[in-house]
């Protein structure tokens, strides 16, 4: 039984970038990295208007499926030198898009012993958001892995498409599009990890 109570969440407000963004925090890998991909999208409000002051944070395993974290027990899977797996991607004031460059993560284990499909964990915050919203980005081209994914199978089938990033360009780094929507029929699926 917990002895203390959690500190309540409050909004990051409109000026979070004073501290919560530094140049290149949305580049998880150098431009020269093999297998580099780009992910970009908008954060859309209930009217479908792209927000100008949202913040997307990502956390992911490396290409081998290893997290740089002491609670990842798979010490036989190599770390990637210089790769942390954390990124901050603020919405660009001009384009109203967030973007980051990274590598597609490898597969990590699920609690039932199966392999999870490649995914990025996303935390969405912004002005007008009193709490963070947690979601995941999956890759639409991983059809087989997605169909058996421990988390995706718990999402009603009609809403799974909201978690799929689609390849939109192969010029240079393959670019995946992933919009995050609040409200509406196509609202992004958000999770509480229990």
């Amino acid at each position, binding site marked *: 039984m917990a002895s203390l109570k959690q500190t309540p969440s409050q909004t990051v407000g409109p000026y979070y970038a004073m501290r919560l963004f530094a140049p290149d925090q949305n580049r998880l890998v150098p431009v020269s990295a093999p297998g580099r991909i780009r992910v970009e999208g908008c954060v859309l409000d209930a009217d479908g208007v792209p927000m100008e002051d949202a913040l997307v944070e990502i956390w992911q395993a490396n290409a081998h499926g290893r997290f740089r974290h002491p609670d990842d027990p798979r010490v036989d899977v190599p770390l990637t030198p210089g790769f942390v797996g954390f990124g901050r991607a603020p919405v660009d004031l001009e384009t109203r898009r967030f973007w980051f460059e990274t590598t597609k993560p490898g597969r990590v284990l699920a*609690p039932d012993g199966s392999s999870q499909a490649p995914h990025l964990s996303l935390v969405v915050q912004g002005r007008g958001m009193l709490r963070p919203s947690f979601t995941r980005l999956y890759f639409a081209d991983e059809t087989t892995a997605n169909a058996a994914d421990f988390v995706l199978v718990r999402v009603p089938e009609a809403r799974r498409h909201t978690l799929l990033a689609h390849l939109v360009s192969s010029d240079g780094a393959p670019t995946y599009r992933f919009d995050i929507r609040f409200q509406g029929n196509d609202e992004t699926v958000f999770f509480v990890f229990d």
Partner: protein
Amino acid sequence: MKRYNPPSVADHPPFSHAAYRSTVKRSPAFDAILVPQTISEITGPGPAVSALAEDDADLTTNAHTGSAAIGERSILTGRVLDENGAPVAGMLVEIWQADASGRYAHPREKDFPAPRDPNFVGHGACKTDGAGVYRFTTVKPGPYPWGNHDNAWRPAHVHFSVLGPALVTRLVTQMYFPGDPLLSLDPIFHAVPEPARGRLVAAYDHSVTMPNWALGYRFDIVLAGVEETPTEEAGTWRH
């Protein structure tokens, strides 16, 4: 495998709170889907990011202009703990705030006729020590007007961000100052369930106050804790 306590509605504000107008169109309509925590959620960036970070804990001088920031010099200190009372050691704590006049050093800041402090950049970072203690020196931020409702003013506050040991311990919050008359009028503060609001208000602590130098405030931060019975090391980070 570890399991972190999920957020409780008793502790946190709702996503939508009509009195804070911009939440209405920026909140989810569907209920969140409950999913068991996996390794993607019980790991997180906090340990690795903290290991790479450096302290930058004096906001009265970190503009590096050669002149100190103007305002009530204040020491903000406290412990970062988990719900089991275990210190979260070696963890990066980041803050940002307005200057003493209520101005933010941000290009899109709302303009109002108050002087900016050119010697204040308004943000800093500090890693907790082995007992989970952080400590900043800053100036007390000023209240400032915002557009939420007629004659709306935010109470003085400092934004705090802590990644914590896991993805699901992510916390961004705001620390308020004791006795601020604007607290009773603030919809962001009031979005928090009443019994939990007091946790966001720092305590004036005369034992932290330094003679001829600065006033002291104490503000502890409690992150989601692991469900299992804590051992000596539970929730503690070592590098």
